[in-house]
């Protein structure tokens, strides 16, 4: 026995050693600490701002930031270090960075990545009301006031939204090759029901094409605004009494789900839509006929250029200004920033100064891009080393135009923004802290039923009552009651 125990311990030691090797491969820490600026706001020495933003890390970031720093040092006495975190990792890594007190001054936040409202309430961002008045006057004039108003959390600003398209509008997108081939009329469609004859034509004639492309995040459009994205509590857009309802119990959603199930059974929707993460392979191959998407001015050109074949779209909803659309891209100042005033000055400059804004967006003139005329630029080969997402880096309306853009591109955006209608609950942000227990349970019920109901995979006759029942058991009514109390209080204080 003694002998076997000894061997055993050897075997165990080897086992443990192997586990170390394996687990060591998993973890890597890409964050290196850089000096958080040595001076404390004295005007002689430049202050270094650390700026975290979303997007695939680019090779030339440091090179461009060196140029940016030269410019900003002269203007406001700051230098800039930019750290990029890739799309899929952003939320998680930022949570860790903020929780561990990593030095940073400016960070990207939005309704979709590193959630703005939640983290503002958790204390991740500095409250900006005073700084904005002191250092942000130009910025206030430059961007649409609806952005600053709509991004208030509990009455305070915690970030500077990027000036870009303001409302969100749903459209039906069509693969124009197929539209032309069958001579279909897309101008008269709008409702979910109205697309049926088109889908039918395609299904009968094109066996290899997915008539109605969608992934598991698809939700039929109904004229409601959700309190929290994709949880079944919503307020009707033309509401007068501001009553929060369970979206699954509304006649509009019930009708839409019945139609979706009909489409699914007719084979208009891919059989595994409810578990499909992305439709990008369909978009690449062109084997789709239509889908639904959110639009912005000149979107058809953008889509056609990126897919390599013509795409046309036609509205499926009104253009509505909602919390989600307003909070699509925000830059916040970190609560632990050592130089909040300088950070605010930098954000002010970034959102008002075309030279700085374009340098951050397109890189160095002559290296990454060249000017064609006063407003248009063309990318050079080197631009592949500095390919930045424009929407996340501040005021879009200062940007140079691409060669194919019409001269009035930003005027079209301004017009689109001016025509958007406010959602009744714009700038009301639900605080779910008191019902956190119920939220966890309700999230689970949502994950269980949502995708299969919304894509039409299951029969709403059978599953809708089940889902409604399970949501109630998980405590949805309690969450709605809490939200209603908060909404009523918000209404009273905002005299809506």
């Amino acid at each position, binding site marked *: 026995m003694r002998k*076997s125990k000894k061997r055993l311990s050897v075997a165990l030691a080897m086992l*443990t050693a192997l586990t170390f090797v394996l687990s060591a491969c998993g973890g890597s820490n890409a964050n290196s600490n850089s000096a958080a600026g040595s001076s404390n706001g004295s005007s002689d020495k430049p202050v270094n701002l650390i700026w975290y933003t979303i997007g695939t890390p680019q090779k030339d970031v440091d090179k461009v930031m060196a140029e940016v720093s030269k410019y900003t040092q002269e203007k406001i006495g700051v230098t800039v270090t930019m750290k990029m975190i890739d799309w899929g990792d952003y939320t998680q890594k930022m949570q860790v960075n903020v929780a561990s007190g990593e030095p940073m001054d400016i960070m990207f936040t939005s309704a979709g990545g590193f959630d703005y409202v939640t983290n503002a309430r*958790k204390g991740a961002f500095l409250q900006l009301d005073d700084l904005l008045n002191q250092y942000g006057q130009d910025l206030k004039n430059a961007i649409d006031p609806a952005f600053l108003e709509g991004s208030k959390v509990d009455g305070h600003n915690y970030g500077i939204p990027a000036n870009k398209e303001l409302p969100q509008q749903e459209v039906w997108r069509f693969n124009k090759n197929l539209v032309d081939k069958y001579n279909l009329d897309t101008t008269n469609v709008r409702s979910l029901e109205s697309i049926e004859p088109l889908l039918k034509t395609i299904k009968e004639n094109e066996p290899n094409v997915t008539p109605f492309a969608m992934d598991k995040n698809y939700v039929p459009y109904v004229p409601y605004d959700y309190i929290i994205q994709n949880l079944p509590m919503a307020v009707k857009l033309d509401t007068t009494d501001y009553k929060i309802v369970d979206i699954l119990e509304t006649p509009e959603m019930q009708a839409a789900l019945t139609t979706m199930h009909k489409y699914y059974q007719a084979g208009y929707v891919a059989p*595994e839509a409810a*578990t499909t993460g992305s439709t990008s392979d369909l978009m690449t191959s062109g084997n789709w006929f239509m889908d639904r998407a959110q639009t912005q001015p000149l979107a058809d050109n953008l889509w056609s250029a990126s897919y390599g074949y013509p795409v046309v779209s036609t509205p499926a909803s009104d253009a509505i200004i909602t919390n989600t659309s307003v909070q699509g891209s925000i830059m916040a100042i970190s609560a632990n920033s050592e130089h909040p005033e300088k950070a605010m000055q930098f954000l002010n400059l970034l959102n008002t100064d075309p030279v700085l804004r374009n340098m951050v967006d397109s890189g160095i003139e002559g290296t990454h891009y060249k000017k064609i005329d006063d407003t248009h630029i063309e990318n050079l080969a080197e631009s592949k080393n500095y390919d930045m997402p424009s929407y996340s880096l501040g005021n879009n309306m200062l940007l140079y135009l691409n060669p194919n853009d019409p001269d009035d591109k930003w005027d079209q955006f301004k017009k689109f923004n001016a025509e958007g209608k406010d959602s009744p609950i714009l700038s009301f942000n639900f605080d779910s802290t008191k019902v956190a227990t119920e939220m966890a*349970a309700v*999230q689970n019920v949502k994950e269980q039923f949502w995708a299969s109901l919304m894509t039409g995979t*299951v029969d709403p006759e059978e599953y809708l009552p089940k889902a409604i029942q399970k949501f109630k*058991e*998980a405590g949805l009514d309690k969450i709605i009651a809490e939200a209603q109390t908060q909404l009523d209080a918000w209404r009273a204080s905002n005299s809506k």
Partner: protein
Amino acid sequence: MASFFKNILKNKVMLLMVLPGAIWFFFFSYLPLVGTIVAFKQYRFNREGFWASIVKSEWVGWQNFKFLFSGTDAWVITRNTLLYNIAFIFIGLVLSVAMAILLSQLVGKTMAKIYQTGMFLPYFLSWVIVGYFAFSFLSMDRGMLNQILGWFGMEKVQWYSDPKYWPYILIFVSLWKSIGYNSVVYLASILGIDKSLYEAAMIDGASKWQQIRSITIPMLSPIIIIMTLLAVGRIFYADFGLFYQVPRDSGTLYSVTNVIDTYVYRGLKTTGEIGMSTAAGLYQSVVGFVLVIVSNYIVRRLDKESALF
């Protein structure tokens, strides 16, 4: 005191070998224990950094644990986690010991190595990749299984929306991935068994089966017990990748695929309440700890030599 240093000096080589592991355990297992108090707090950021955040967050008592036990899913996730793990432990044990014995009986060493490596390989694959392997079999319109069913004139099955197949699929996939690794552990100790025992048995005319039953299995029992005790300690932890990636997060399958870990993930991914996820982790560890103590106690009563401690 002097004898203590003497002891260290005497065992310095052994202690040096233990050192990396001990350091690792200190940093990644003992140090984070302090963070357990987050389970009883509503975590909020503080500009002074992580420790200040912990200290200054508000105490909320057992509030963070409530979500695990409220709602109708509490029973489903506990049942799924426990039953699947029990199945993995026992079926896995039988199959990997059997596999190890078979491998040890192979005469051709090259073939034995090839089988061993082949079985070991799935262990290194990520669950995401395994999930896609499974998808290539189970896809509704392009999956291999549905093609085969088609040849026999049978109807296609919507694998990802019918819960009744999934307990079998999950157990199969999990075993396929883990057996190779476990059988190597058993194989290593089979190879360590004194050959003279088998020679003596052969002289006495014992058949292969009798040798396995009376020599191999009894000699293996200490490591079997240790491996099982370790697995029992993790009985409240479910393999997240297996239960999330392999069923492609399909909602209609939740009745048989939702386990504690996936429930916690789905419930907290949007709100990101660190306190609640810490609470879930603490609950799992405490239950695991109790189970290890209890099962070790039972083993001790049966056979003192085999117990872990």
